[in-house]
């Protein structure tokens, strides 16, 4: 799959009747992040982690998944976000970032949301200074009734690879 195609998954297809974009929402640190579902290969119980000395702080280390070595990334650190209450590593999602798979460490998987294009506020239209990895944000209804809507930070997997190498 090309990186371009992945990006397109967060941009509505005008030709399509059903323009909803499936997004996997995961929580890490204090935030909820969304990845285009088409780029998520697998959700794993965390395998043993091997730290790599001398690597940047947002790399948690490497894991072995069926013989392949996968780099595990900590999203809040990468996005310079503060984590108030750090949880033990809950799940690893394997994301296709174009040329390879990378592992993203998350606390838990929240849900798969079908986002309508008008529910997404694209970064390009916002005045706020957002990380280059962020496509935009979206509000999704909370799972626990009565709570306020959840804010999902939508991640661009292609930009992620570009920023990590």
């Amino acid at each position, binding site marked *: 799959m090309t990186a371009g195609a992945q990006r397109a998954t967060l941009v509505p297809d005008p030709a399509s009747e059903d323009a909803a974009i499936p997004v996997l929402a995961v929580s890490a640190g204090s935030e909820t992040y969304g990845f285009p579902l088409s780029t998520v290969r697998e959700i794993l119980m965390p395998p043993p982690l091997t730290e790599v*000395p001398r*690597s940047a702080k947002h790399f948690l280390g490497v894991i072995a998944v069926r013989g392949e070595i996968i780099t595990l990334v900590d999203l809040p650190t990468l996005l310079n976000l503060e984590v108030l209450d750090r949880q033990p590593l809950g799940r690893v999602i394997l994301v296709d970032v174009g040329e390879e798979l990378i592992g993203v460490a998350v606390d838990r998987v929240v849900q798969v949301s079908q986002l309508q294009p008008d529910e997404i506020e694209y970064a390009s239209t916002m005045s706020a200074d957002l990380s280059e990895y962020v496509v935009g944000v979206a509000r999704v209804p909370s799972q626990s009734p009565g709570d306020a809507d959840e804010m999902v930070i939508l991640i661009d997997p292609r930009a992620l690879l570009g920023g990590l190498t």
Partner: protein
Amino acid sequence: MSDPRDNVQQEFLAEAQELVEALSRDLLLLDEAHQRAERPASSLINGIFRSVHTLKGIAGMFGYKHVGTIAHALEDLLDDLRLGRAEIGDPLLDVLFDSVERFQRLLALEDPQAAEEAPGVDAYVAAVRSVGTQPAVEDGDPLHQYAIGQAVLSVLTEYEEHRLRACIREGMQLYRLRATFDLTAIDDSIEALRDVVHDDAEIITYLPSLEGGNDESIELVVLLASRVPEPELKAHFEGGYGTVEAIEEQKHLPTIPPNLTSIPPGAQSLLPQPEDEMGQASLRSVANSVRVDIRKLDDLMNVVGELALVRSAVGRAVAGLDGDPKHRHSLRELDRLGRGFERQLSELRTRILDVRMVPLGQVFSKFGRIVRQAAREHDKQVRLVVTGANTEMDKLIVEELADPLMHLVRNAIDHGIESVDTRMRLAKPAEGTLALNAYHKGRNVVIEVEDDGGGMNAQKLRERAVSRGLLTAEASQDLTRQDMLNLVFLPGLSTNVEVTDLSGRGVGMDVVKTNILRMGGVVSIASEQGIGTKITVTLPITLAIIRALIITVGPRLFALPISAVREAIPFAPQDVRTIQGRKVITMRGETLPICDLARLFGLRGAKPQESRFVIVCEMGNRELGFVVDELVGQEDVITKSLGSTLSSVRGFAGAADLGDQKLALVLDVPALFSEYFDGAEALPSAEARA
């Protein structure tokens, strides 16, 4: 492993077979084009020419005399064909197709020298030559669409033939002028005719006719090409010279039948007969080998790795049943089976590795020509001496080695070996010697490129490094002679100021070093002025799988390629001294620099200093001791890349799966050496994080 001589032979056979197959495929395309009366693409003919040319070259090297002889004859024929000197016709295609069968039979012979076993080679070569010298005769040729006559065509010079074709292509009409000339003034008369013709027509050729003429005069037939309409031309000539007749284009002239009689009768009978007893053999592949994409072997190796993981999981499951008296008998049986399985697995691994091995001769063989050529260009006399061409290495490494070695060889001729004059003056043999040596050393292969030339001037290297700002004058004071020689590996410093066509192409020794380092090897240099230079490249035999010493530093497992490890000794912290800011210990009277991996990687050591170990590693001609916490043991590991995200982290060649998803980072020993000794880059990350 089989006899290396045999391997070389097999390599040749595989390559020759491939060339013959390519030749056969291309000939079919050529034939197809011919049948459709199309001109074959020049690239196709060039491709055929190259196959035959390469075959000739390698046949010569491996003593396949007859293959070489035939290829040589074909090469000439194909050369004619591609230069347009010969035209494609059935006789030509016949001999070409015949060559495929002949090559295959000759390659099937046990003994390449066996002349008796290869009948008819000379006759076949004669047949090839006769096809080549036959004047172009075939239906695609415009010449044969005119009734010019074979007698005329056969005496045309190459240039005349070329002009004739060109005129026809330009749509000019051909005429035959018969004119009688006075024998005593024939030269002047022809000159006069040329002047008359000049503007109206081109004289292609003139020949004496067989009919007219007597003692004083001769009748010439002049072949003319002209745009002037026939009546005008006739009016122009028929008064003073003779008769003019147009040569008609014969659109429906049946093509001249393939001139089979031009092949000597003797050769005809030697064309392959269906009942030929060797006919069957020629249809089969001669060499029992297949060519496999190296990535498929990597995949296989991955499967082996997975199998090993399954095996260890089974072992754990079995261990879980231990102590249950009910299963005692089955457990013993399972244990026995498990060990058998492991043995087979390790055998499988060895076999796959063996498949990847090819002799270094594969690259060395390319250098003979280069050395000759380079020596000629520089007007030097160089003798190439190769030893250890049978030394086997991983195919990937051999491929990767070609460019760096080429550079070293060219450097040696360009900068190393002196001109004949200089050598004579120095009382050296006029002919310089360039030696390429390869040999095994432990689990490494050592390749030396050695010349008996002028050697390197260490002081000059230092001066140049300083003048180019690669080194401060101050720092250059402390350099040993070896340090100065090593400066040659710095980017931007080549051994000779003037750019030469041989090695001055912007690729320096730094690129050679980088390429070798990337393969997990090291380069070292030894040079004596006036005596010569020796560059030594040390490389692991294979990249895919390595035997590693598993160690711990703090809580982490690391793998150290055993090829680099010389020995492990207990660490004695009280013996550590500091020399020029570097920590060293003394081992058997020698000073050994040491590097604490816990400190380097910013890890907290898990053991008290006095119970740690020093792993003494050796790369090229340098030694370094790594201080580690624990020795776990030796293991065969498959090194996997860390991927693009972590490729910029220095010091690790990759990670190895030790089973149970437990990973060990594989230390990149050459990089760590280079970091420690050359201090190319500082180590900010570890210090900052510690």
